[in-house]
Every structure is written in structure tokens, then in C-alpha cells.
């Protein structure tokens, strides 16, 4: 490549003296190569995603073929033996209930934290809190699992044991002798704590884009701060918050390690969510995948496919609603 910058005199010499310079710039050969490379790199992303879908579907097919509709209507999961049975209903329900509990725990707290950082906190600590939330959002889930298992679990168990002694009219407390560890509820609690930073981060970002003059107008008209929050900020930021919640939901559905550490897996539906037992798709895969025969691997792959497609669609919806949630890096 010779220098792309041609000196003006050269350019003028080339141009016919009376007509103005034609402003057409054909892309050079190098440009075409460069564009080709860019296309190639982007195609890799599509390749990966279609590869995941294809391989999961291909490998999940035998189990679906073997069990038929039973695979999602039965909760009897027995991967080994001569007549294995692959009912995924238990783990499906478990995964969904963990995610729902996580949202119930995490979302109100996360939204109030976002409001606090944006509207109530003094300006000086706002930056610090924003950084802190962003840092917490990148901490690995292993830490949440470790902390939840060793520090949080005994505390929660104490409280639940006490409650089950004194409030046994509540239908979830059946047996006062139980220890209430390794439960779906505890997993939901830890995952809920885990999604707080991500939901806070997205909601805070959206709330900070509410036009300040509208907020100030609300205050100037004599509104209270809470009035400003409910009538200006929340309506404006509603879509962004919903998008943040969907992102949190996707993370809660796909969480593996924290659940794997905490849950005592039984892979059937555990309606008594405070008691040990229940199932979760990612934890099931992580726990058993390597050690089971081929057909059972296939059933887990099918479960993985269900999860992947669900989360993919959730993310697409989140994107539709929010536009594009900004990834905060500064």
C-alpha cells in the first residue's frame, strides 16, 4: 500500500481543469479485504450461537425420542439403570421457583437501592456507591454460593427453626425437627442477593437519564420527593427497570454454581420450599452430566436446550423493551 494520502497538487493535476473534482470514492481492494475480515469475525458469533442450538438439539433428540412427551410431564428422573426415566418436570419447576423467589427478594431491594443511589444519597457518595454496585456485579457466583452455604445458611436455618416452633400454623412449616437447609428457598434467597447488583446497575442507569428539569418541575410545583419518584422517575424509567428485571431473571434461571453448592438435589417437585430437596436444570447438568450413560446425557442436553432457548428469548424480549440496556463501564 502506498500512501493513501495524496498531496493536493497531485489531485489537482489529475482533475480536468474545468470540471469540479468528482466526489466518488470507490472502496479500494484493501477496503474490501478489510470488510471481508469484519464480516468473517461477525459470522463467528452467528456460527457459535447456531452451533450451540444445533448441537444441543442434535444431542437432545434421542432422549426426547425415547421418552416422548413424558420428558416434560413426568417428574420421575432416574438416569441410570436398564429402564431409565427422564421426567424433567421436577427440575423445570425447581428452576422456575428459584428464579421467582430470587426476583421477589431481589427486585424491590434493587429498585430501592437504585432510587437511593440516584435520588436520596448525597452527591459525594453517589460515585462510590455506583462503583461498588458495578464491582459487586462482576463478582463470580462461586463467592455467592460459598457465602450462602457457609455463612447465610445457618443463620436462615436458625430463624426458620424458631419460626416453625412458634408459627406452626403457617402451612410451609410441617416438621419442627427439620433443619431447613439445602432448600429451594435458600437458593432463591442467595440468587436473589446475587442479582441485586445487576438489576440495580441497569435501573440506576435508566433512572439517571430521566430529564432533570422535569424532576425539578415536579419539586417546584410543591411535590414531595416521593411524589417526584412515583410520578416522574418511575413512569419514565419503567421500561428500563423491566428490562433490568428480565436480565436478572435470565441470570437467575441460568445460575449454576451457587445453586449446586446449596441445594440438596432430589429432582422432583418440592412444594415445601423451605425444606431440603427440589431440582434445578443447570445444577442437575453440572452434578451428573459426566457420570451418566449416553441416553441420560442426551436428556440433560435437552433440558439445557430448553433453558438456553428460554433465556435467549427472555433476552430478546428484554432488548425489545429497553432498547439496549447500557453496559456500564465508567
Amino acid at each position, binding site marked *: 500500500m502506498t500512501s493513501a494520502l495524496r498531496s493536493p497538487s497531485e489531485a489537482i493535476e489529475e482533475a480536468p481543469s474545468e470540471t469540479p473534482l468528482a466526489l466518488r470514492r470507490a472502496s479500494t481492494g484493501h477496503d474490501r479485504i478489510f470488510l471481508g475480515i469484519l464480516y468473517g469475525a461477525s459470522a463467528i*458469533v452467528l456460527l457459535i450461537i447456531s452451533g450451540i442450538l444445533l448441537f444441543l438439539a442434535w444431542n437432545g433428540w434421542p432422549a426426547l425420542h425415547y421418552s416422548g412427551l413424558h420428558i416434560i410431564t413426568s417428574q420421575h428422573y432416574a438416569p441410570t439403570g436398564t429402564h431409565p426415566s427422564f421426567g424433567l418436570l421436577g427440575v423445570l419447576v425447581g428452576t422456575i421457583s428459584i428464579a421467582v423467589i430470587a426476583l421477589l427478594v431481589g427486585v424491590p431491594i434493587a429498585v430501592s437501592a437504585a432510587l*437511593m443511589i440516584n435520588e436520596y444519597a448525597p452527591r459525594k457518595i453517589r460515585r462510590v456507591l455506583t462503583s461498588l454496585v458495578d*464491582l459487586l456485579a*462482576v463478582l463470580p457466583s462461586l463467592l455467592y454460593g460459598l457465602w450462602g452455604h457457609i455463612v447465610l445458611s445457618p443463620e436462615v436455618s436458625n430463624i426458620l427453626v424458631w419460626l416453625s416452633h412458634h408459627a406452626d400454623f403457617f402451612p410451609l412449616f410441617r416438621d419442627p425437627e427439620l433443619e431447613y437447609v439445602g432448600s429451594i428457598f435458600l437458593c432463591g434467597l442467595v440468587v436473589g442477593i446475587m442479582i441485586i447488583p445487576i438489576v440495580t446497575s441497569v435501573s440506576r442507569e435508566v433512572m439517571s437519564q430521566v430529564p432533570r428539569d422535569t424532576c425539578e418541575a415536579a419539586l417546584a410545583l410543591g411535590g414531595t*420527593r416521593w411524589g417526584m419518584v412515583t410520578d416522574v422517575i418511575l413512569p419514565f424509567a419503567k421500561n428500563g427497570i423491566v428490562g433490568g428485571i428480565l436480565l436478572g431473571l435470565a441470570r437467575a434461571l441460568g445460575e449454576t454454581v451457587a445453586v449446586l453448592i446449596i441445594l440438596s438435589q432430589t429432582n422432583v417437585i418440592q412444594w415445601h420450599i423451605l425444606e431440603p430437596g427440589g431440582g434445578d436444570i443447570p445444577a442437575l447438568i453440572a452434578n451428573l452430566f459426566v457420570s451418566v450413560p449416553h441416553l441420560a446425557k442426551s436428556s440433560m442436553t435437552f433440558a*439445557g436446550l430448553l433453558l438456553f432457548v428460554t433465556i435467549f428469548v427472555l433476552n*430478546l424480549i428484554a432488548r425489545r423493551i429497553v432498547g439496549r440496556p447500557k453496559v456500564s463501564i465508567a
Partner: protein
Amino acid sequence: MTSLLETERSPAPLFDPDRPRPRAHWAPGQLPELFGSLGASAAVVAVAFTVGGLFTLSIRTMLFGELVCVMIGFLLIFGILTALRHGPIVAKDRLATVGIWVGASIALFPLVQMVLSVIGHGGSVVFEHFPDFLTHDRVDNGMGNAIIGTFEQVGLATFYTVPISLLTATFLSETSSAFSRIVRTIVDAMMGTPSIIAGLFVYLIWVQPKGTNGYSGFAASLALAVLMLPLMIRTAEEVIRVVPGSLREAALALGAPRWKVSLRIVLPTVRSGLLTAMILGVALGVGETAPTLFTAHGSEVYNFNPFSGVQANLPLQAFQLIQSPSPDLVRQAWGGAFILVFMILGLFTATRILSRQRVGAPRRRFRRPRKEVELP
């Protein structure tokens, strides 16, 4: 100067700091706000402790119960007091303020407590056997093999993802076509890929076909790359969008071809932001456990070769230690978590320092142009 001011008789200033202030007179109905809330809390604490004392509770459970009771009671009494004095609108506002502060502290409390407990538990393990814990392998109660594994796997993953993500981000921000819209949508949706699925995918395409010796650090790096790629592309694209269009247009108007505009003008302008994006991806890769389960598989001894044989990985090894029944090994897991937090904190601090740099700040070393363009 001062004397001059003193002699001049100016009209009485609107605000004179020396003037004695009128004394607040507190009528019984007009106690200042603080007293209202203090009184409310005192009343509630008293009630709660009396009630709590009636039950025999373990001290921790009791503290939690007390806290909940105090909170509810405080909100009740405080709400009623304010509503009586200022009306329902102000009462709602005050209650909401208290609620939001409480919500935010509930959010921060467990998170901060988690980080502190990792530092507390883990720090004691790491510093008890200081260099040994970092250099010995798991057989000798150390984390050295896992640290090497993490470095090699994340390093390899970074090696593939950095060029691909930079090129894709350039593609997404510099061109617009149906194809780029599809890619952008897919990248966004891929951001939430469950980590276990990435591991499963690489197991199916790489480990399983290779049979029993398919596990390797390389396979783990592939799985990590699948997870790191969308985050890096997404952040890098957002960074590149910051570059003003006029800069591109100026370069194009001077006759530069588009590849040169991208590689020599656009990308260097935001290099600190791009570096931040890459570091964020690396921080994600360092912390992932699930994708390495079926790929690196973990090992108790040193394996320096990522291309053959099982290899350990920091979060993976910590996870395996947590699963073990021995309390000593669980303590080592805290040590592993401590190293993990330390690494991620370092990476995060690097992003903060980088993001403080101005966009397009000049490089430290200036290069003189080789040839000067002569104008006619």
C-alpha cells in the same frame, strides 16, 4: 482596608452572622422532627425487647427478630406521628424515604458482608502459609496448580476473543446493514447465555469426540471464550460509538481508505475504553466455574500444558474443595475465593483507572511523521 469598611455606614445586611438568633421556642405540639423519630424508635425498641424477652431465643435469632420488629414498629409509630402533624402526603414521603434507605442498606449489607467474610476467612488461610499456599499444588494444600490453570485458560480465551471482539465491534459500529442488525441482536441475546450451557457445548463438540483424554485447559478456554465474547463485543461497540463522526469524516475527506480510518483513527482514539472492555471480559472469565466443569475437569497436581490432560482452575478448585467433607479443605476453598476476589478487584481497579482517562488522550510518546506533506 477594614477600617474603611467599618466607618462606612451600610444599610443593615440581610444576613448578619453576628446577630443573635431568635430562640426557638418549643411548644408542646411543635417538638422538632428529630425528637419525634427518636421517641418513636425508643418506644419501639423498648416494646420489642420486652416482647423478645418473653421468648427464649438464641441471641442471633433474637437480634434478627428484634431488628424486624423494631423496623415495623418504627415505621408504624413514625408514620402515625407524621400523619397527625403534617398530613398524609408528607407522611407518605417520609415513610418512603425511610423505606428506600432501609431497602438500600438491605441490598448493601449482605453483599458487603460477603466480601468481608471472604477477605476475613480467606485472608487468614492465604497468609497463614504465605508463599506456599500460592505455589504448592492441591496435594500439598496449595492453589498454585489452579492459579497456573486460570492464567493459561483465561489467557488463551483472551487470545481468541480480543481480535474477534474488536473486529466484530468495529463491524457493528462502522457499518449498517441487515446482517449487522442481526449480529447485534444475537450478541445482545447471547450476553445472558447460562455458563453451564457453554461448558456443555464445548463438551459436545470437543471433549466427547476426543474420548477419555478430551479434557484439557484448551477446551476450558473455548468455553470461557464463548462467554467472554458477547460481553467484550458489546462493551467495545459501545465504546467505539463514542468516537465522533466528524473525526471519521475528516479522515475520509483527506482520502484515507476505510480500513485505515478504522484501525488508525477510530480504534486508537478510544484505546483506553477498549482496554476496559477487554479487562471486563477477562474479569468475567476469571470468575466462571460452571463452563470449566466438563472441560478442564480439575486436577490435583501441576499441569503446565493446557493442550493435554486435565487441568485445574481457580474457581473450579475452590468449588471442588467446598464439596469435600473435611473442614480443612473447605477453609482452603475460602483461600481460593480470596485469591479470586483479589484478582477481580485488581482488574476492576484497572478499569476504573483507565476509564478516568480522557477519550482520545494523546499517547505518551509522540512519533514524528516520517515525511512532511508539502503544500503547493
